[in-house]
Structures are given as C-alpha cells and as structure tokens.
C-alpha cells in the first residue's frame, strides 16, 4: 500500500519535472541573432486534415523561403508548427504551449471549431491569433476579439456574390438546395439574408443529406415551382451527384453553386454534367486567366509556381489562407518588432496588403478585411474553370 502511493508520487513528480524542463524561461531575450518565434496550430490529422496538410506545407515553404532570404531584418524566423489532431482540447493545450514558448503570434487553427476553442486563451494571454477558418464568429464581435484575425472569406460574402450575380442576370425567382450539415446550413442562413437585399425571391427550398446518393426527388419537387435558376450549396461528392441529376432531368435553367466545389474532385466526379455550372470562388483556380491589371495576379502565379516546385501539385485555397496568415504576421513583425501588442496594432491597421484570398483592408471594426472583390465568378467550360466577366 505504502509503496504504491510512494510510487505514484514519484511518477507525478517525474512528470512535472519533465514538463517544466522545456516549459517557461526562454521567453525573453532580444539579442541580435535571436530568431522571431511564430507559432502555428494546424489540423494536420483528424477530420480536418484535408485543410491542414496544404496549410502546413505552405507555412513550411514560406518560412524556409524567408529564412533563405535572411529572415526579417537579418533575424531568422523560428516557425513552430503543432498538430491539434482536429481536437479542441488539443488545440488549447498547443496554444498554451506556444504562448509559454514566447511566440509573437499564433497562426491557426484550420477549422472553425478548433479556432474558436483557442480564442479565449489568446485573448487572456494577449497574443495575436490569425485563424485560417471560415466562420464569422471567430472574429465577431470584435470588441471581445481584439487579438483575433482571420484570412478566409466568410460565407455571407459568397451568398452576396451569388445574389448579386442572379440579380444582374435578371433571375428573380430561384430555388435553393443545400446540404444538411454545418456548411450547407450556414449557407442557407446567409443566402436567406442576402437574397432579399438584391431583390431575389427564394421560391423553393430543399435539403439533402451529405451521404445521399441521388437528389432526383428534391430536384423534381423544385422543378414544379418553375425557378429561373437553381442554387446549390454543397461540396463534393454531393455537389457532383446533384449536378449529374440536374443534367439528367434537363431543367434547362442555370445551375449556380458555391466555392465548395472549388477542387479537382468536383470536376472529376461530375464529368460532362459540370459544364455550364457557375460559382463564386477565390481567384487561385483561375489565376492564369485574370487580367494583368488584377493586383493579385502576380502573387497568385508566384505562389502556384513555388508550391508546384516544392510539392509537385497545384496549391489549394486552404494553402492560400495559410499563405496570407503567414504574410500578415511577417508584415506586422517587420513593422512592429518583437512586441505582441504592437504587432496586434499593426495587424489591425493593415490596409492594401495583397494576399492569395484577396486584398486585406483590416480595421478595428473588421478583423477579416476582405471585400467582395476577393472572389470572382467562374463558369465551368469543357471541364475547366473559366473566369466569367
């Protein structure tokens, strides 16, 4: 009995010693060669891995490039990337670890849930956080989120873009179909807000499950209301299935989708049926077709070339969010030096910074800073993305 308790005590103290060993202590020190420490918490494994992996690759690539160029004003950047396994508790622990290590800012996380989980931690520790996730809740209300910024476009922007496109093309009565999950639901809520502003009526609403293999019944129901266009808020494979059903039924009206179809999987799965589909999207997929006057074009092409050289594939939109987060942090450190509060102030007043997802114009009221010009409307022609003027 006694021995057992002693043993337990021993184990506990060992654990503590092990934990303390690398814990605090290394926070300050402003020597010339001292690297700038930047933390990143990325959903590298778990359900959000498809977002996190390109983000990690992009961050690594950018940090290597920066250090090869001599870092920031001669000081190298020490980028610490941690995996949170798409788990919220792990994200909180990772954030505290990074803060103890004295990072100047935290990039992350990849998904809305993990990003929200660390908001309280960074707010309390007064460390700037730049999330790469979509939910507007991450940065709103700004009064409670002074230290939190994000680089991905919010859903309301996509909804506005679609509604504006419909109005401009004289399609007043539309049908709306969405996936029955967080993505589709957020889309539905935002589209219901955006449509009336542009004078668009939603005359039919249908939902389908993410696992459904056929949406013919929903589309048949929608057809009876005679819409002038059909809007679908989904990601592949559902988005591809409904595109095929749509073609088979021959509805004969335009099919509008969202940024959710912005990957090769959608084109592969829907084949010929995808031709003619219209969707708002980040500019990365059509970088080559942008007019030379577009402020983002040069950066987009540079990113695509660099990523293809390092990893052999074309980068995804998610990698773009990481690219922007990293550049925002580097920009802020260049201006402010190794001071968290000064970095936050610089971030909040950054304007005209050209990124992959758009041109960032941050302000004390807007911690995302992307306008609707950050997205373009594209159409699929012959199985390829085409910029629609």
């Amino acid at each position, binding site marked *: 009995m006694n021995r057992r308790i002693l043993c337990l005590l021993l184990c506990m103290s060992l654990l503590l010693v092990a*934990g303390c060993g690398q*814990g605090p202590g290394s926070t300050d020190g402003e020597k010339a060669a001292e690297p700038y420490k930047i933390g990143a918490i990325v959903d590298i494994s778990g359900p959000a891995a498809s977002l996190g992996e390109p983000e990690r690759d992009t961050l690594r690539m950018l940090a290597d490039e920066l250090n090869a160029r001599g870092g920031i004003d001669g000081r190298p950047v020490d980028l610490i990337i*941690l995996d949170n396994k798409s788990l*919220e*508790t792990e994200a*909180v622990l990772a954030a505290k670890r990074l803060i*103890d290590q004295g990072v100047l800012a935290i990039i992350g996380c990849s998904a809305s849930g993990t990003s929200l989980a660390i908001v309280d931690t960074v707010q309390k*520790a007064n460390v700037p956080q730049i999330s790469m996730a979509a*939910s507007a809740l991450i940065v709103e209300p700004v009064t409670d989120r002074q230290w939190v910024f994000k680089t991905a476009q919010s859903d309301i922007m996509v909804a506005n873009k679609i509604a504006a496109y419909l109005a401009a093309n004289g399609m007043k009565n539309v049908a709306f179909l969405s996936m029955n999950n967080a993505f589709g639901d957020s889309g539905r809520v935002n589209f219901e807000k955006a449509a009336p502003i542009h004078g668009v009526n939603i005359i039919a609403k249908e939902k389908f499950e993410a696992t459904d293999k056929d949406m013919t019944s929903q589309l048949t129901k929608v057809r009876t209301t005679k819409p002038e266009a059909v809007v679908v808020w989904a990601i592949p494979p559902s988005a591809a299935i409904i595109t095929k059903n749509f073609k088979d039924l021959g509805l004969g009206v335009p099919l509008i989708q969202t940024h959710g179809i912005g990957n090769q999987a959608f084109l592969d799965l829907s084949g010929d049926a995808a031709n003619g589909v219209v969707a708002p999207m980040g500019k990365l997929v059509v970088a080559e077709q942008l007019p030379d006057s577009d402020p983002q074009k040069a950066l987009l092409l540079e990113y695509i070339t660099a990523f293809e050289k390092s990893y052999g594939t074309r980068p995804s939109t998610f990698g773009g969010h990481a690219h922007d987060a990293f550049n925002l942090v580097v920009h802020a450190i260049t201006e402010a030096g190794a001071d968290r509060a000064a970095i936050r102030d610089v971030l909040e007043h950054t304007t005209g910074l050209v990124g992959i997802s758009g041109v960032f114009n941050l302000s004390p009221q807007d911690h995302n800073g992307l306008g609707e010009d950050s997205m373009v409307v594209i159409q699929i022609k012959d199985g390829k993305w085409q910029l629609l003027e």
Partner: protein
Amino acid sequence: MASAKSRYWIALILVVVCVPLFVKSNYVLSILIVIGLYAIIVQGLGLLMGYAGQVSFGQAAFYGLGAYTAAILATKCDWPPVLCVLVAPFLPALVALIIGRPILRLREHYLVLATLGFGILAFAAFNESIALTGGPSGLTGIPYLSIGPLVLDNDRSYYYVVWGVLGLVILAVANLTGSPIGRAFKAIHASEQAAQSAGIDTALLKLQAFVFSAFLAGLAGGLYAFWVTFVGPSPFGFTASIEFVLMAVVGGLGTLWGPVLGSAIIVGLAEFLRWGVPILLPKVGGEFEIVFFGIIFVLIMLLRPQGILAPGRPSGMSGVAVKEEKCSG
C-alpha cells in the same frame, strides 16, 4: 496503520496544493487540469469496469452531455456558472438511468457494442442539433466559473477547483468501495451468478455503477466547459471513449489511484509525442500516437495485465478481472 495512512493523505494533498507554487507555466498547469478532468471520468469508469465488471465505450458521450448541459444553461438560460456545474452531471446520470436497464442486460462484447453505439449516437446529436449545441461550430460565449466575487479566470485557480473536485471524488470512491455496496460490486465482478445466488440484486447494482460513472463524466464535462469557455463536438467523439478505457486499464482496474496514474500517463505521453515525434521523425504524418498507444496497450496486457497499480500477484477477484479484461479489451 491508520495514522500512516492519513500521513500519506496529508503528504499527497500537500503536493497537489504546492504544485502551482513551483509551476509557473500555464501549459504545465493546463496539462494537470486535463489530467484532473480525465481522472474524474476514469474514476467512474474504473468503478464500473474494475468493480462492477462492465465495460463502457460511451463515457465521452456522458462527458459531452455534461459539458453541453453546463454550456447551454450558462449561455442560453443565463444560470450562474456554479449552479450549471452542479446541475450538469444530472442529465448524463438520467440518460444512463434510462438506457442502463436495457443495455446492462447485455454481456461482454454486446455490452461494449451497445455503449459504443450510444457514444456514436450522442456524437451525431451534438453535431446535428444546431439550434441547441451550435453544431460543428460549437457554442461560444460561456462565462468563467465564479463563486460570488471570485472569478476563476486563470489556470492556477482552475487547477485547484479541478483537483479539489477530484479529491472529493476519490474520497467518495474510497468510501464506496469499502462499503457493503463496494464488496457487492466486487462479488459481481468475480461471478455474477454466484453474487445473484447470494442474494445480491446484480441488475440494480450494475445500474447504479453505470449511473455513477455517467454522473462523474458529466461533472468533468461541466468543469471542462467553464475552463475552455467554448464547447464543440470534437472532444466527445469515439476516440475519447477509447482513451478513457485505455487510461483505466493502464492505471490498474479496481485500484483507487490507478485512474489518476492512467490519465497522467496517457495525457503526458500524448503531449510528449506531439513534441518528440516531429523532432525524431520529421516526415511522419499525423496519427502516429495510435501506434504508440497500441504498443503500450500490448505491453500492459503482456507484462501487467492487471494494470500498473493493481497488486502484482493476481489473487482472488483481480485474477478474474484479468481474464475479463482480456476478452473485452
């Protein structure tokens, strides 16, 4: 003996109380908080598995139910946080009471499957009831735990709360296992038929253990919600349930301190791997820790199947515990 025992208790309490005086790192304190939270859950699970002999792969669901109950009461009904933490365990306990009767009629693999199914159902419910739980985006705006003017908004004070609660739980479990009910639990574990023929209401006792374990998981959930001040579904998935079972088995079933040691080992190891593996094997992908947990599980089964803290020589009941663990694990 009694005085020696109380001396150890005092020493132990002193260690727990003094830790924050020496540890200045919020990261280390956070790890200790997580260990404390998990130890509360694993205490309940340890009682269920080690004494009553029933395996549950649904503890993460009760943990989540507690967290969501506390979070929803605090954000949507504006209840005072302390009341939320106190009320939170009762919903999981009630759910356990309702599903317990039919589920506990099942044995071994079937019981495992039923609790596993319940865990997955609850996880789907957390994700889908968007109006209530916020769905995959979770619930934000949870206030800090406050007792009167005292607001527990830092890791140091929260560490004391969690370990204080854990201390009370350990005390309760110690008293319970020493009582006639505890001995009846052990009898069920040894042989359900024999216990039944000795006049023990085995169905009722198993149900009580199940409800108690759900209550403790819910308690930890409520504490979790006010620590992170954000609740999303990801900590309450199937993997978490497996980890709780792993903690219980590694620490030692049927022991008082096994759950604490088990949680400390698994949480500590996961944190160590997060740092160690990328340094040693930079190219390795995400899910490496599953491999390490698997190796630990196999080693424990081979070398100390009764768990680290359980008595070395299988005697009496723990001998049976070993056998049952093997077939359910």
